[in-house]
């Protein structure tokens, strides 16, 4: 029995001694790994989520001697992406890291090559060198695009990140694009930006001289972009987006002088988009007015007249007249009545009719004709002055739109 107790006790001693050694070893090993959290900035306020409720700060301290960024970095982008994916890095973050890196690498690549013409060159030699440089830059841009496409796939584009700097543009884009999902906003934006880049490239190459082949290339890019937009948006969404874009463009081109209801304006913008935008696929520079052909102009007016009716269409025409616009601009600062612009416009119509009648009358010529013209001018001047008052009339004459009042005799 004593022998058994002795063996058990010695055995227990051995176990305890081993446990102690192991415990001490573990303690000494973990001691230097002080939590990095101590060195971290004060956590709390800058929450990644939008709802910033009080949260426990969650600190992750990596054991840096076991995992280091070097393990995932690679000269080969495909490997770099694979490594990032391998540790579960979200695709969006991979896209951010790699596009920024590639952008930087290609900026360096693009700028490091010296200008082939050298500093002191001119004329045809310089022009040829510029062409070589532009071709090289285009090739690099294509190479960059292909690389990103190859390693990241089609869903990752740096365009959105570039634009994300500008909150105002983001807001405007969101406002114009209409009610669609976030992902769609980004894809639509990317499609438009990429299209605009191609258009810019064609125009740059043309150097202000557009040949039929350039116009064809533009039409092709436009068509492709429109097809892509059709893929991204439902027909209703695309129509609404196009109409909103057109409405903003029209606001800088006379529409701001035409009083409409929201429904009317929407319908007009839809007609405009159908004629100028969706009709031929010229969906670029959404906030700039496109060049319009006379055929398109005519079609737009026909469709607009049918929608508005004769009376409202005449008001629309009036709103595009600088004579009318000039008075509208003076209305608020001079506390004029809302109908002042229409009255001046009507006076102008009467005066023009009077002049035309006089011009058609072959029996009146020379000094007599001049005297009659002067009489029409004086009557007109008094009438306009009566509507606007002294101060606003003086301002109207000063702005270009009011010169018609005084140029009857010597236009």
């Amino acid at each position: 029995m004593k022998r058994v107790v002795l063996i058990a006790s010695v055995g227990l001693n051995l176990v305890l001694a081993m446990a102690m050694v192991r415990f001490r070893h573990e303690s000494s090993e973990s001691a230097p790994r002080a939590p990095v959290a101590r060195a971290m900035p004060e956590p709390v306020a800058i929450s990644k989520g939008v709802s910033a409720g009080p949260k426990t700060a969650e600190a992750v301290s990596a054991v840096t001697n076991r995992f280091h960024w070097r393990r995932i970095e690679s000269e080969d982008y495909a490997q770099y992406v694979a490594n990032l994916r391998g540790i579960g890095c979200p695709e969006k973050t991979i896209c951010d890291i790699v596009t920024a890196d590639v952008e930087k690498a290609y900026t360096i690549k693009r700028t490091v090559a010296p200008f082939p013409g050298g500093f002191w060159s001119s004329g045809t030699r310089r022009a040829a060198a510029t062409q070589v440089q532009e071709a090289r830059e285009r090739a690099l841009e294509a190479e960059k695009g292909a690389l990103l496409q190859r390693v990241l796939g089609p869903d990752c584009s740096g365009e959105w990140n570039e634009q994300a700097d500008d909150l105002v543009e983001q807001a405007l884009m969101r406002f114009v694009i209409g009610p669609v999902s976030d992902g769609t906003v980004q894809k639509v934006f990317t499609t438009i930006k990429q299209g605009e880049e191609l258009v810019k490239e064609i125009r740059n190459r043309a150097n202000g001289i557009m040949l039929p082949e350039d116009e064809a290339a533009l039409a092709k890019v436009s068509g492709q972009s429109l097809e892509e937009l059709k893929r991204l948006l439902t027909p209703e969404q695309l129509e609404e987006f196009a109409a909103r874009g057109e409405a903003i463009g029209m606001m800088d081109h006379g529409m701001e002088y035409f009083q409409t209801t929201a429904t009317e304006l929407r319908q007009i913008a839809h007609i405009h988009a159908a004629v100028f935008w969706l009709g031929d696929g010229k969906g670029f520079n959404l906030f700039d007015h496109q060049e319009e052909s006379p055929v398109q102009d005519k079609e737009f007016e026909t469709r607009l007249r049918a929608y508005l009716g004769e009376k409202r269409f005449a008001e629309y025409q009036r709103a595009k007249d600088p004579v009318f616009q000039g008075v509208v601009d003076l209305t608020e600062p001079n506390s004029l009545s809302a109908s002042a612009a229409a009255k001046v416009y009507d006076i102008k119509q009467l005066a023009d009719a009077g002049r035309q009648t006089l011009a058609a009358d072959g029996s009146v010529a020379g000094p007599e004709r001049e005297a009659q013209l002067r009489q029409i001018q004086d009557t007109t001047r008094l009438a306009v002055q009566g509507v606007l008052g002294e101060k606003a009339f003086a301002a109207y004459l000063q702005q270009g739109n009011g010169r018609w009042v005084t140029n009857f005799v010597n236009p």
Partner: protein
Amino acid sequence: MSAQRLIAVSLCLNLVLGVVLIRGYRRSTPMGQPTLATKEITNRSLRLDARRSPLDASSTQPPAVAVVVDEAFRWAQLESADYRVYVANLRAIGCPEETVRDIIIPDVNELFYRRVKGLVDTVQNRFWEFLADKKALQKLVEEKQGQLEALDKERDAVLKELLGPRADHRLRANELAEIEQVAARKQFLDFLPADKIDRCLALDEKFKNLREQIAGAEPPLESKELQAKYKRLKEQQDGEFEAILAPEELAEYKLRNSRFADTRLRLTGFDAGEAELKEMVRIQEKFAGASPGVNGQVALTSEAQKQQRDELKKMLGVERFVEYERAQDNRYQEMYQVADRLQLPAKAASDAYEVRAAAEALAQQVRTDQTIPEDKRTAQLGAIRAETERALVETFGPKAFELYQTRSGQWLAQLGR
């Protein structure tokens, strides 16, 4: 030793070892702190520390929990609801600062985009209503603009706190612009040996930092004092820069830096050699330096202009001087561009230019000749125009002429009046 004594000693040792082990364990585990849990997956380990920050005194969360997990490294272990922790974690695993910025800036932008979306989505469905009401739209724009500016400031403050005082939402764009600027500067200095280029760039950097320090001084300097300091810095920089360069290098630098160095960019279709171009700059500098400027612009007297032209003519020879002057004439440049675009020989442009010069001179003669009756004058001007158009079609070909006429042909209409 008897077995009894051996048993007693061994039992005592049991007791001592047991007590030491328990005390040691207690010392390593403070009261109230849960036990560490270890999960072996691979040889990579990571410590997840969910203890509340010691700085977060207001928190009433339960006591800290520390967990050591040995497992394959996952990105999720770096993620945090708090950007400062996320950034610290990225830095802790050796993520380069540039990459930290590449990760954080788009992420913060995304956060603020959600807030922009919040601002816009409230009015999104009233788009047409606002657009039809100018005043309401203006009010909306002003209101939203203010909110967006506030967001911009907030975003910059967040980025500064996370990434340092120089960080803001333009950081990445600025970095790319700086890469381009440095590359352009290197090319500008490419006549220097590599070590001198490096010294010049270092000098640029040094003075850029000094200017930034002055611009960011607290309290801000008065405009006059600021300008004076900038001026002194500029003088100091020029002095230090000149000290790096040998005399012939400095001469080249001054030529390249001359306001007339862009002459080389304006010479459409005129190929001048390096020596010629430099001489053109020297001559223009010489006359400009001798003339009093007007509002910072060079204003040569007619005599000085004549002397300058004479010197240029002497340097280039009569024929090349004519080409040199023509190359800077807008009328020739328009013709040259059309010819170049349609890959016509340069001679087409110079011939067309001569046609125009001759036609305009002839038309002017007809206009000023008082002996020609009005009806005949009109007829003659019409004939000059028709003949000029015919000559241009012949020179350019019909396609290029049509293109030219559309872009720059207004003078042809005036020719007939």
